[in-house]
């Protein structure tokens, strides 16, 4: 943990340097203009101080050249900042192919983490360094926000949808994890730590912890327990669509709209089945809202995803980098 009086946060992710660079640039611009204005005010106040009671100023009405100068220069600086900020945003937003995925569920007032290998944690997140990690996050109640200052990453965690966030830790250590969106009484207690580890130690951690079965296994069991399989059969004889190779494909809906079958689509189809019915099927499915928790939803999604070649969860339970895969559909969702 840092010293008792830090003035600057630790840099512990691949992205941190990029964010800090734009920060320092903006601090420099701010300091320059603040000192310029303050300097001019002090200088003019002294140089042009009122010397006798009835003195008046020189009537000057303005200067078009100066107006254009101080319109144009701030505009150019502002547009430069905009472009730079947008570029950094895209770098922070676009998940590299082959990122290791971890599920996160926020609820008042804790963070629940589920690894693809079945390991679960509360208010702690263990990750390997040197490897992109992507968090798929949902909320059970109100809006939370997952924030790791040392990594310079943050994303709101919103009920009813999934937001994602990715980072690549670069320095082993324990870092703050904060909830940044006010979420009620113990908002400031909704904190934890992110433990970044060398890959070998991370593997040892994975092996050492109790694993309750992978999310895919848990999802498969739920699929049976909730009797999903009675309609979603493996051949096309069922009353519901076949789920094999569904994930990541284009789905034609009633009414002619087409959507990509991503996490958000699967979730919506479970909790609100009438919203997006596949063309050629009857709206027969009952809602499972309230019958499955956010974590179980994520398990069901993992299972549906595992039925697809394109959807096999990367990095399940292993610290070794996987081959890049085409996951562009997922990155395009909100």
């Amino acid at each position, binding site marked *: 943990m840092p010293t008792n009086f830090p003035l600057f946060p630790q840099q512990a992710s691949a992205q941190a340097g990029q964010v800090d660079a734009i920060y320092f640039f903006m601090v420099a611009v*701010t300091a320059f203009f603040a000192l310029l204005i303050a300097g001019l005010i002090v200088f*003019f106040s002294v140089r042009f101080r009122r010397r006798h009671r009835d003195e008046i100023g020189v009537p000057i009405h303005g200067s078009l050249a100066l107006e254009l100068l101080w319109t144009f220069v701030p505009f150019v600086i*502002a547009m430069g900042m905009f472009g730079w900020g947008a570029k950094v945003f895209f770098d922070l937003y676009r998940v590299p192919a082959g990122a290791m995925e971890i599920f996160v569920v926020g609820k008042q007032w804790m963070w629940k983490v589920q690894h693809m290998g079945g390991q679960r944690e509360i208010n702690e997140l263990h990750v390997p360094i040197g490897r992109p990690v992507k968090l798929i996050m949902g909320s059970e109640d109100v809006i939370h926000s997952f924030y790791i200052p040392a990594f310079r990453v943050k994303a709101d965690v919103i009920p*009813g*949808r999934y937001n994602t966030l990715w980072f690549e830790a670069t320095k082993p250590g324990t870092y703050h994890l904060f909830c940044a969106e006010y979420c009620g009484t113990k908002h400031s*207690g909704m904190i934890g730590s992110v433990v970044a580890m060398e890959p070998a130690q991370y593997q040892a951690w994975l092996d050492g912890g109790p694993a309750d079965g992978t999310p895919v296994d848990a999802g498969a069991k739920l699929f049976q327990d909730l009797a999903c399989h009675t309609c979603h059969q493996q051949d096309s004889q069922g009353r519901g669509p076949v789920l094999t190779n569904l994930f990541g494909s284009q789905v034609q809906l009633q009414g002619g709209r087409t959507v990509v079958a991503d996490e958000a689509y699967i979730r919506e189809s479970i909790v609100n089945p009438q919203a997006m019915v596949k063309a050629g099927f009857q709206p027969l499915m009952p809602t499972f809202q309230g019958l499955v928790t956010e974590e179980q939803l994520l398990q069901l999604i993992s299972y549906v995803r595992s039925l697809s070649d394109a959807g096999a969860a990367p990095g399940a339970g292993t610290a070794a980098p996987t081959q890049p895969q085409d996951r562009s559909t997922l990155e395009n969702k909100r």
Partner: protein
Amino acid sequence: MEAPALNYLNNGHGAASWLLTKDHKRIALLYLASITAFFALGGFFAMMIRLELLTPAGDVTSPEMYNRMFTMHGVVMVFFFLIPSIPAVLGNFLIPIMIGAKDLAFPRINLLSWYIYVLGGLFTLVAALSGGVDTGWTFYTPYSTAAANSHVITAAVGIFITGFSSILTGLNFIVTIHRMRAPGMTWFRLPLFVWAHYATSLIMILGTPVIAITILMVAAERALHLGIFDPALGGDPVLFQHLFWFYSHPAVYIMILPAMGVISEVVQAFSRKNIFGYSFIAFSSLAIAVIGFLVWGHHLFVAGQSTYAGLVFSVLSFMVAVPSAIKVFNWTATIYKGSVSLDSPMLYAFGFLGLFTIGGLTGLFLGAMGLDIHVHDTYFVVAHFHYIMVGGAIMGYLGGLHYWWPKISGRLYSEPWAKLSAVIVFVGFNLTFFPQFIAGYIGMPRRYHVYPPEFQVLNVLSSAGASVLAVGYVLPLIYLTYSIFAGAKSPADPWGAKGLEWEIPSPPPTENFGITPIVTHGTHQYAPRIEKKEVGVV
């Protein structure tokens, strides 16, 4: 000019003569008294927050109490102090006088707006006294509609009601500025204070209905379980954020534009010089009002908003910075070759210039999407908007109050005390809020009741600054009040400033002008008249 025996202050005595008055100047004083009371209340909540944050542990208040403190601080300061402050007090008092009118266009509606404000304020007081609200002043859903266990609806109704007072004031100003100008008072002779209020009024009447309907939807979902924002009822929680910020970002301009109007007047008066680039300042106010309506999405960069929408909001947010920059440069250029006198209003104006520059530029940090990801919802944001609202809007308000106090009260206050308090406010303000930029960048989230120990030093500095700031705010209350009873009588124009308000007695008669003035030139024209007398001085 010798003050006549009868003026607006002594023309009628007793409670009824005040509570039923239709005189814009008396209504301004009713507002002055009520917003001062709310400012004290909001300040009390702020002191509780700073007291709690002295130590990392939660040892002064419970978490429930702390959450109510910062919520009530925000609600009271934003809706009941900052938004009405300059428009309803100084604007109300000065706009008719500055344009050569005897009153606002709708004097009864003006009085009605004050009663509506008070009614809304009472609802909020009831909400506070019966246990408070814990949603934050932002009322984010679904927390506010489904989870919060506090008096959300009472407070929401209070804000809903008060919104109408703001709409009526804006409407009144717009009609007055269009229809009541004295002969010769053309648009480009208007004092810049009036231009700023014109822009502000546009935002008030176009934006406030949106917050009203949004607040109403929150109440409807909370009380009747209509599914609007709560995903469990089929709603969209992010929709609330769009609606809320559609008003609440422009609301920041409601707070800062009038302060900019004050600064334009004060800088001219204490440089004895007309403004540099009049039309650029006037039109930049309108540009801020218009572009300001299109930037709300910069509050949602980490809320999962579409990236392309984010890009548009980001570029517009950078654009809205340009008119502010234009104003700062023009004010600075106005001092050049002026006859500069560092009286207390000018000290406040200089404080405004420095703090607003920092507050504005740190806003760019938040508009830069990649950087906002890190600083969003941290103390960096808290520091930024306090530089704008306290460093900008309140400095402007205090500067204006000092500048026009001799006109309003007819008395002169103690200038040494006023200078001292201006310096104390400036020092206390920076000590309070500068450390919060650092705490925010290190990663301290806002609205935290307890916090990790490494943030303590910065928080202690901040709390120390807050107590200095409190002294700076209490002092004017004392010496301005004292001046009413024991201050020397003010002449019509104690500063040697120019403008219609300085041509009538202090305090003004009820009808402002015995004969409607005929205007032949813009305000703050110092040169021509003096040139005749003292050729070659400049």
